[in-house]
Structures are given as C-alpha cells and as structure tokens.
C-alpha cells in the first residue's frame, strides 16, 4: 500500500505546508505565498488522480490506446486561473492596505484599528 499512495502523502505534506504558512504568518504577502503553495499542491493532487500508468498525454495520436485522464487536467486549468485571479485581487487589497495603514503586518494592523 505504501508505495501506491506515497505520492499522495507527499502532496498532502505540501498542501499542509502551504496551509500552515497561511494560518501562522502575520505578513499579508507571505500569507498569499502560502495560499498559492496550498492551491498549487491541490492542483498536483488532482493531476496525480488523472495519471494512468503507461498512458500518454491526452492528445489523440494514431496507434496510442492508453491516455491519461483529461478531465482533471481541464479542472485544474480552470482552477489555476481562478487561483491567479484571486492572488491578483488579494495583492491589490494588500497594496491598498499598505497605502491606508502604512504596514502589511497583521498585528500592527490590528493595533492601528484599535487606536482609532
């Protein structure tokens, strides 16, 4: 069982690293990097699902009978786009926050909110 699922477990480790960064970091930019890591790892997880041993890339070619599953690829194409769109919006927010508060550290932000 171990070698069969080992791939997934490493991916889970990757995901959790990203997730951990999101939760634990106080820097808004770093959070976004973590979020990106988290999402990218989920993409890897999906693509792993689509792999068929001995299959080839899902582009029709004469004489090839076994292809990897194209559906996860499609889903992840969409998800990648969604991810980068989210990042762009988030960065725009960070820039505005920086302009309004003068910091991008979570703790300082909370302090400045309490002050006013």
């Amino acid at each position, binding site marked *: 069982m171990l070698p069969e699922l080992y791939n997934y477990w490493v991916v889970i480790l990757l995901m959790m690293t990203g997730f951990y960064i999101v939760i634990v970091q106080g820097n808004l930019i770093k959070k976004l990097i973590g979020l990106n890591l988290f999402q990218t790892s989920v993409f890897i997880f999906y693509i792993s699902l689509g792999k068929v041993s001995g299959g080839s890339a899902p582009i029709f070619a004469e004489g090839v009978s076994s292809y990897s599953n194209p*559906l996860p690829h499609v889903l992840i194409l969409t998800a990648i786009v969604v991810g980068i*769109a*989210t990042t762009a919006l988030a960065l725009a927010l960070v820039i505005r926050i920086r302009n309004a508060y003068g910091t991008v550290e979570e703790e300082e932000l909370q302090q400045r909110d309490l002050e006013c």
Partner: protein
Amino acid sequence: MLSHLPILQVVVPLLAAPACLLLDRSRLVWIFTVLACGLSLLISMLLLYQVSQHGTLSYDLGGWDAPWGIEYRIDLLSAYVMLVVSGIATLVIVAAGTGLEREIPLEKQTVFYVTYLLCLAGLLGIVATGDIFNVFVFLEISSLATYALIAYGRDRRALWAAYQYLIVGTIGATFILIGIGFLYSLTGTLNMQDLAARIPDSAGSRTASTAFVFIVVGVCLKLALFPLHLWLPNAYAYAPSLVTAFLAATATKVAVYLLIRLHFSVFGEQFASSSLPLHGILLTLGLAGVFVASLVAIFQPDIKRLFAYSSIAQIGYMIIGIGFGTAIGLQATLLHLFNHALMKGALFLALAAVVYRLGSADISAFRGLGRRMPWTMAAIVIGGLSLIGMPLTVGFVSKWYLILAAIEAGMWPVALLVVTGSILAVVYVWRLVEAAYFQPPENELPEGLDGPDRREAPLTLLVPTWLLVLVNIYLGIDTRLTVGTSGAVASALLGGGQ
C-alpha cells in the same frame, strides 16, 4: 425560449456585467443594471412557476448529456432560493440609484455595478448548477466579486476586512476543491445526481467521509458557522451599506443552500448521519453560534456590526434545523433561509438609509431618530420584531417550525435554548428602539452635515425597504407560499433522497 430559462437565469446577469462596462455613463449603467436584475427576477418567478407545475427541470449545457456535460438542474429548492436572491438583488440595486452616491465615488460606480452583477451571476450559478465542479467555479466568481464589493467601503478597515474574508474564503474554496477531488477519485464523476447514485456504493469508505468533511467545513467557512464566523462581522460592518444588505440577504443563504444541497442531494441523509455524528455537531455548533453571537451583538455600538452578529446567530438557527435531521427541522431551516433574507434585507436597507442621512450607523446616531426618520425607524422596528419572532411577521413562522421540530424530536432543552436565543434578540433590538424613540437626539449633528440631513430618507431608498417590510408582514400572514414550498422541498430531500 421558455425551455432555456434555467440558463438564462444565470447568463443574463453574467453577460450584462461586461456589457455594463461598455456603457459609459453611470446613470445609464444603473438603469441597465436594474433592468438586468429585474429580468433575472422575472425569470426566477417563471422558473418557480414552471418547477411547481412540471417538476424538476434539467438543462444540458452545450447539448451534452448529464454526466459528460454540465447540467443545470432546477428543482423546487433551487428555484425558491433563486427567487430570494434575484428579488433581493433587484430591490437593493433600485435603492442603489441614490443610496450609492454617498458611499462610492462617481467614477467608480460603473465598476461597482459590474462587480455587483458578477456577484449576482455567481450566486445564481451556484444555485442553478447540477455539477459539483461548476459550483466551485461560480463560487469563486461570486467570492471574488464579494471581496471587491466589500473593499469599496469608505472606511479603511473595509480593506482589511475584505482581505481577511479573502483568505478565509479561499481556504474554504480550496477545502471544497479537495473534497471534490476525493469524490472524483472515488466515483469518476462530477455530476451531482450521478454522484448521489454512486456514493452509496462506497459507503463506509474513509475517502467518502473525508470528502464529506472537507466539503462541509469549506461550506461552513463560507456561511460563517460558529466558530468559523470571524470574518463576517468586519466584512458586513465596513462594506458599503447597500452591499451589506445584498450580501447579508443572499450570500450566506446561498451557502446554506449549498450545504443543504450537498448534504441531502449529493451525499444523502443516510450517508451523512451514518458516517459521522454530524447531527450532534451541527446542533451544538448552531446553538453555540446563536448564543455567542447574540451575546456579542448586545454589546456592539455599531449597528451594522450588531446586525452582522445577529446574522451569525440566525445562521445558527438554520444549522440547528438541519441538525434535527427531520423533515420538519429541514423545513424550519428552509423557512428561515427565506425569511431571514427578507428580514435582514429590510434591516440593512433601512440602515443604509440611516447611513445615507447621518453618515454613521453608530448607536449614538440613532438617538431621537424615531422622530427624524419615522419611516426608516418603523422599518427597522418591524424588521427587528421579525428577527425576534413576533407573530404576524415571517420570523414567527420560522421560529414556530423550529420549536415544533425540537419538540417533535423530543429535544425540549433545545427548544428552550432556541427561545432563549430570541430573548437575546429582544435585548439587542430593544437597545435600538430605546435610543430611537425614548432618547432625545444629540444636540449637534455630526459635523459636515447640515439641515436637509435631518429629513427622512429619499424615496428611492424607502420604497425598496418598505417593499421588503411589507413582504415580511405579508408572508408572515399568508404563509402558503413559503410553508408549502419548504414543506414540499423538505420531504423531497429527505424522502427520495433524489
């Protein structure tokens, strides 16, 4: 054309959004947006009628059959939720005609309307679709639009709130994505009906349970179930008031819809209750949410924040309804979903009117408001009574069913806790009433506001507010539509498991 209604419901606002951008004048954009929302409301009414006459509608996008292509599937439940969403959206956008001018600078209004339409399209898409990955895509459309809408608030804290919501929302969406991945690995399909047919084969599988847990947690982040609610109060408090009205009445409702849909239609009550002690967890969290959020609400000086906490509490009620695991409980949830949208829509619209006139939603701004803005305050009072669950308002109907469900399930303590929660609602609503009617106004208005601002809100804000208030009362008296529909939906969801 009638057979294409399901897709038109989503595509109308979806395509209206970029079209808006091509129009340049913001007044024109507003009129166009109102038309688009109105059209979408009309479509949702027709859909509800069609569904109630002919049963569930299925629409294959691109002409591909269900498990291969994406399917739109409109049953009574989705038609009902879409009616709420598009109805509220229309009223809010009508109010935005004048209400917006104080909150968003003119040059940004076009972008605001575009984002608003996109958000609406996203929400409707989540409800209409029968494909679980499509849910994710439209969830992200609505979420991204929501983050932007919140960030348009004047207060700089709006930015911070939007960022927090973005992080939490994205984590939630990613969790859902992980859950979908597990499900796909288990069944090889993304179509909800197909999933529902295949999941029982792998009942007891740890993969299925994990998928369920991740999806539920992801959705609960979105619907701000206690203790995952921390993003909501700030987001609602600092967003532009009209955005708050829209979001409070629709976004969380759609999340609740999603929970119900996935719980009952995809996994099925059987699976959900056998693999996990889900009912107990939902009941506990729901009750905890009701109490904690209501208690916090009592001490909020900012009224928008107060009602934001109250929203968390009301979501708690909806979750309790699901937690009973009975048809009546589910019916109570559905009723409250519908009814709470009406109450909160009315309340936040009225608050928008207050902010429009006074520039603040602080409790001190409310002193003596009963005289200054009698109609607005009356709307708030009626909305508040509905929140408490007074008879002859919609709030009573949903509370009645919730308590009935508790008693029927033999859970007397839950029934008592639910009603105690209403008492907390009395407390926070009454702070407002006292301030508005029995305290003299502060001598000086906040600086920068002069004479005319002492007046009642403009009609364009009042009329939508009062429309909602009247619907509140009307549906509190003539309950055939809501009770009938929710009853039919509840028994369909629990009975056949689809």
